């Protein structure tokens, strides 16, 4: 890997003194990448793209925004109405947060399925979890800035979580608020930190990429690259492949921005914050919903907060919970099932976070009804008095298939979901490491299997498996 000879004398002059061009050539051009990466590997660069989009639109928005409780809401509306292309910047930023999370969630689940967290990439994985934590903090603070009803009440609920910390809890909350309630000082510190944290994320992303380039990307087979026959240079192969993926992704992004810019947000946030009037349901943005469900599924406040944070922190130790030597889920027949149940479980948890805990989900009619309506239906179906039904409903987990009044209380569903979430990491993965018999793993990327079988035929029949 000799340093490249640059034709341009200016570049040559600079590179001799500051080898930044050699560095870029090495890390972004000839950087050897497994040749069998599929499109799930596109989402890392998409996340990087979204970070840049958020920083650029965010800085321009900050030029027009006023972080003051009396002016914040109207300054956002001024951006929407009077600033040239202000509506576009704001909708790009607002929906950009959702897009960033969609991309990052796919990136994380890709890592979970293909075992990207396993040795020697544990630190790479942990840096990723750190980025994710920072993103959650940043997005939360950004949501406070428009100072709508949900901004205010979301900030109140989330900051209040810290009061669950024993002994110093109340002091932490006072510090977060900069006073004794969510008010102007709170908004000011949220703005300062919302501006700062993206650059911290950028720094951690750079370290994340440094860690990535130490051993290179993992790949769908989950085996190490054995030599130059297994790799191709990053440019032009993956730059062009990622560009294609970026085009598809931007169409998806554009759909939300131009045709459904408010569909992912809560309408109540178009009302000015009012400390005297609590919204009917305080619901976080969709990307927090699974964690909100975990928080609510535990009756004790402190334990709920602990469970919520633990659900993310557990990812830090994941490389040591899953001891299976096989990385890719493709070759783990049992793991695969549990993985897809986990994906499903997270969707269920998201669902539980969205709806009031005391509501009932009736999966067969695909309805969510409040406790009163559900009780009335139970009474009707069973032909019993309302009070009797109220009693039954209060006791049951909501399931009574015999009478047809099948329904499950949202909080119960959330508890089941929470149980599976933790069981996946703490019980399923460690046990699978011992009891699962993985399928035969190919010897190398170029030579997919070591002896016969359909994979060989497959490889020869379709030599250009590149889609």
């Amino acid at each position, binding site marked *: 890997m000799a340093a490249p000879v640059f034709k341009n004398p200016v570049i040559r002059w600079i590179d001799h003194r500051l080898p930044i061009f050699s560095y870029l050539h090495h890390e972004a051009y000839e950087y050897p990448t497994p040749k069998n990466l599929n499109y799930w590997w596109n989402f890392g660069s998409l996340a990087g793209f979204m970070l840049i989009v958020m920083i650029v639109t965010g800085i321009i928005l900050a030029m027009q925004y006023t972080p003051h409780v009396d002016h914040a809401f109207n300054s956002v509306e001024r951006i929407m109405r009077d600033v040239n292309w202000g509506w*576009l910047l704001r909708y790009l930023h607002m929906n950009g947060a959702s897009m960033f999370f969609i991309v990052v969630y796919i990136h994380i689940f890709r890592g979970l399925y293909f075992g990207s967290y396993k040795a020697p990439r544990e630190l790479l994985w942990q840096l990723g979890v750190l980025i994710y934590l920072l993103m959650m903090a940043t997005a939360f603070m950004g949501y406070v800035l428009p100072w709508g009803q949900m901004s205010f009440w979301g900030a109140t609920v989330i900051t209040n979580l810290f009061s669950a910390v024993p002994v110093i809890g109340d002091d932490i909350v006072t510090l977060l608020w900069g006073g004794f309630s969510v008010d102007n000082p709170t908004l000011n510190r949220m703005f300062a930190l919302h501006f700062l944290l993206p650059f911290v994320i950028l720094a951690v992303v750079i370290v994340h990429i440094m860690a990535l380039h130490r051993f290179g990307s993992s790949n769908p087979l989950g085996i190490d690259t054995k030599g130059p026959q297994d790799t191709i240079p990053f440019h032009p192969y993956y730059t062009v*492949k990622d*560009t294609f993926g970026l085009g598809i992704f931007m169409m998806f992004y554009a759909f939300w921005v*131009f*045709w459904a810019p*408010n569909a992912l947000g809560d*309408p109540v946030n*178009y009302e000015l914050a009012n400390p005297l009037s609590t919204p009917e349901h305080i619901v976080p943005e969709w990307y927090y919903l699974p964690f909100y469900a975990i928080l609510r599924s535990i009756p004790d406040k402190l334990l709920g907060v602990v469970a919520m944070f633990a659900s993310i922190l557990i990812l830090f130790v994941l490389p040591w919970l899953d001891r299976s030597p096989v990385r890719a889920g493709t070759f783990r027949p049992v793991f695969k099932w549990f993985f897809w149940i986990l994906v499903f479980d997270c969707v269920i948890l998201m669902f539980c976070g969205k*709806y009031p805990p005391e509501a009932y989900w009736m999966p067969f009619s695909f309805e969510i009804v409040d406790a009163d309506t559900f009780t009335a239906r139970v009474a009707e179906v069973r032909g019993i008095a309302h009070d009797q039904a109220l009693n039954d409903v209060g006791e049951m987990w909501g399931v009574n298939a015999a009478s047809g009044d099948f329904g499950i209380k949202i909080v119960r569903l959330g508890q089941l979901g929470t149980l599976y979430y933790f069981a996946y990491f703490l019980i399923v993965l460690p046990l699978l490491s011992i009891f699962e018999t993985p399928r035969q793993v190919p010897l190398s990327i170029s030579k997919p299997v070591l002896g016969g079988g359909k994979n060989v035929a497959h490889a020869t029949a379709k030599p250009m498996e590149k889609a």
Partner: protein
Amino acid sequence: MSKRRIVLAVVTAVAGLAAVGIVAANPVHHAEVHTQSWSFNGFFGSFDQEQLKRGHVIYKDVCAGCHSMSLLAYRDLQDIGYTEDEVKAFAAEVQVEDGPNDAGEMFERPGRPSDRFKAPFPNEQAARAGNNGALPPDLSLMAKARAGAGFLGHDGADYLFSLMTMYKDPPAGVTIPEGMYYNEAFKGHQIAMPPPLSDSEEAPLDQQAQDIAAFLTWAAEGNLEERHRTGIKAILFLVIFTLLAYATKRKVWANVH
């Protein structure tokens, strides 16, 4: 791609979209909303200027007696097809407090196009005092603040239409306090606003309700048409960009085995 992988990708996509659907749907609520067909819905949706003008008249004659619309300026009305002179005339209909002048005194002057819509009450207390203790909310963003049940987010108009048209006599067993009204579209069904619209010689209630809902949608989302136009251009660009990127990708990868 093998068949299995395609199936897996489709299943994943469907699960993802279902998740998004959950998010876009509204939490449990007790209000009934009637869906209407709106000219501003859809990929090419745009406002019907005549409808907006009719809605503006309703706003001026009916709503503005109690509801402010503080985020709009008279100049914005040019967007719905009024001429500059007409807008000046609208603005001049109200007296606006300005000042202080050189003598240090506040004074009244006729409104200008750059003024914001004049609020009917000087402050919240006055508004409550004039309305039986209830506060008529500002209408600038009402169409967006009451959306939520539909996918494309324009359903605030459906809600406003329903609110205008679903005043009913309370069902047996439900008593409504003095000064309150029964409305099936309103959360809790009990609303302090008297029925603002009714069938008239010029237009039936349904049409008036559609007109005001469309006007309020424009007020909340005046950039909607520009947004749709820009979106179409963006998508056209992205389709070509993506096709070129795909062709390039095929070519570059052709020799990778």
